[in-house]
């Protein structure tokens, strides 16, 4: 992997401009009602953004993981109702690292490969079992299914038409469908070294940290704007110190979450980043909890209505907080990592991160 020092500024600018144009309050609201947003997806796909960080000779758009995570941050920032993480850094990554073709449409993955059994014969895999909470399965062109068969990680590129899909939603109304495989047969091939259920789980957490950092930032900005406009007792409520405290919570959690997500992204772009990713997911999870509380409180009743956009962000944050590891799971992981280094190793772990663990 190439060592990049930063994000291509053009990526930030173009993605931000695109989402500003196509993801307003109404289109996000409509997407929730409809369960999909085909126009938003096509505008997004036209730019090639979904496939950033996948090599061009594999059918991707090139660019680094940092660029891809920057796009995800902006997806979170604009509450874009599309399977961006699933198609690129998760599903696209799985397909590319196992030699599968990258389809032109959306891809999804199984965030928890629960209850799936697979049998392989030649280059075909037969799948059975049911997987819940699969993002956007109903609109996916392929489901990249990662399983371990006899100690070897393999990816099957499953056509969702061969599965039974029951629509379900997360707290934000985004599709989190139940997928029943029931004997689906799909082409399968082994992954390159380093791509396995564990590294996938971390990559999933990293994708959510980036999305969450963006959503927290947007929420914080909305709150500053709203409280400066909202007049009570003859002055903007932002002039009350009690409200300013909420604003500071929102802003500091946004900064913290972004810092954690970007640090983890930078390390992951360089090599193994288990420690940084675990820390980033835990930090963004907890930042999300504090920031949603503060931002809702500062908005008063306005923030509780569907007519005002705050809920697009707060509900996504409550959902994403539980995806690819809730607080308990990552706390435990980090606790075990710390304990494994002993008292003498603690400082080295905190300062050196994953390089110490590997």
């Amino acid at each position, binding site marked *: 992997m190439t060592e990049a020092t930063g994000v291509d500024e053009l990526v930030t600018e173009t993605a931000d401009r695109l989402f500003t144009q196509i993801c307003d309050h109404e289109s996000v609201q409509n997407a929730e009602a409809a369960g999909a947003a085909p126009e938003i997806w096509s505008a997004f796909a036209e730019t090639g953004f979904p496939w950033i960080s996948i090599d061009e000779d594999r059918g991707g758009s090139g660019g680094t993981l940092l660029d891809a995570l920057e796009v995800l941050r902006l997806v979170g920032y604009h509450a874009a109702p599309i399977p961006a993480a699933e198609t690129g850094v998760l599903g696209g990554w799985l397909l590319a690292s196992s030699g599968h073709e990258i389809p032109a449409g959306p891809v999804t993955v199984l965030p928890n490969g629960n209850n799936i059994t697979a049998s392989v014969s030649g280059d075909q895999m037969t799948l059975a079992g049911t997987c819940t909470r699969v993002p956007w399965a109903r609109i996916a062109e392929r489901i990249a299914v990662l399983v371990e068969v006899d100690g070897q990680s393999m990816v099957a590129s499953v056509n969702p038409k061969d599965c039974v899909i029951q629509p379900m939603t*997360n707290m934000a109304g985004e599709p989190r469908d139940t997928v029943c495989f029931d004997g689906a047969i799909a082409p399968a091939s082994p992954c390159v070294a380093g791509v396995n259920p564990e590294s996938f789980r971390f990559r999933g957490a990293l994708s959510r940290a980036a999305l969450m950092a963006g959503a927290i930032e947007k929420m914080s900005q909305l709150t500053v704007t709203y409280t400066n406009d909202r007049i009570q007792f003859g*002055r903007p409520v932002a002039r009350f110190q009690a409200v300013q405290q909420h604003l500071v919570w929102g802003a500091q959690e946004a900064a913290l979450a972004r810092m954690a997500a970007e640090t983890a992204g930078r390390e992951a772009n360089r090599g193994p980043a288990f420690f940084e990713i675990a820390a980033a997911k835990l930090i963004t999870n907890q930042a999300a909890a504090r920031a949603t509380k503060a931002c809702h409180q500062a908005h*008063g009743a306005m923030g509780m*209505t569907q007519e005002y956009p705050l809920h697009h962000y707060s509900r996504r944050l409550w959902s994403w907080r539980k995806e690819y590891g809730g607080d308990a799971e990552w*706390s435990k992981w980090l606790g075990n990592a710390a304990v494994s280094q002993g008292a003498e190793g603690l400082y080295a772990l905190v300062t050196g991160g994953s390089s110490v663990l590997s």
Partner: protein
Amino acid sequence: MSDLTEDQIRSDLDSILERRSAGTRLTTMGAGSDDLDDGRRYLATTVDGGWHVPTWPQQHGGRGASPSQNALIGRLLREFVVPDLYPFAIGLGMVGPALLAHGTETQQDEWLRPIASGASIWCQMFSEPEAGSDLANVALKADQDGEEWVLSGQKTWTSRAMWADWAICLARTDPDQPKHKGLTMFSLPIDTPGVEVRPLTQMNRDAHFSEVFVSDARVLDSWRIGERGEGWRVAMTVLAHERAGGGSRGGGDGNARGVRVPGWISDLQALGVAEEQVWRDEVSKIYAHDSVSRWTSQRAADEARATGVPGPAGSGAKLRTVKSYKDRAYLTNRSGGSYGMLSEGPGYIETMTAPSMSIRGGTDEIQRNILGERVLGLPGEPRLDRDAPWRESRRGLL
């Protein structure tokens, strides 16, 4: 009525109500439910005994109970299935007490019994787009026209308006008076020509509150509650009862007799999280806080009954009660692990409702301002608009 013993009350209630079992779960504060029937049936069943509003006079649907008898009845009612009375809460907990304090005899005769029996639902038309925390900034105007008043303006966040028969409506009758002085309280039949209710959908998908547009709606002078210009005083009575939680008896997490573990904890146990130490810690903390909340609310309610007016203790009780609700909601939601992300997951509706608990009925910040000023005697916020005519101060003097 002379005081009954615990056993007498229990056996009277036994004859009309069902016992609560350990598995009884009810919605709280209407979240996610549009049911009116359960509450209506319960109130119709209890009104003759005066069981739900025991301190009200007997002819109005109470039983003229003493404060101690009332407290005992309240405690015993928790052993029975009392449905969530959210749709009826404004009448039972706020308008009723306000009418007893400020209403005329005719008004009491006409309105109290239907409230107690569940026959009429009331809503509270206080908040407006520019009058939230700053409630005294209400702009909806009422002009007198002989024996009638003509009301025009807009209310918002009016919970229950689409179910309501009546509204209690705070209006501006004298814009040249300072903001707190030119207000008057009215009762308004919600089907009055000129009143239009437009429901707003909340993020928890309930459409329980509405915008209410009022244009030239005519109400009788005999529906005015309190004197002209006394609206703020009546509003304070209503709000004090709201904070003290007068309307909320019923629903929620009462215990079956002899059952110590509240339902939300048994639910967590069923999910298997109660075995883990960190979760046990959180559960126990919330349980302890919950118990203190309940005692604080009881104390505030007792104090209110003793003095006849709920005081600032209600603000403390409200702060604690909403914190309990929120903590329980968030913990339950997280306890489902990644299932908790689903809109079918545990604690979904409560989590979506939770932020509003610290907003409705006066925000946490406003409750703390009340405690700071009225209990601790801290200096109040600078208020330049106290004496200026509302006409000049309404857009702010700073």
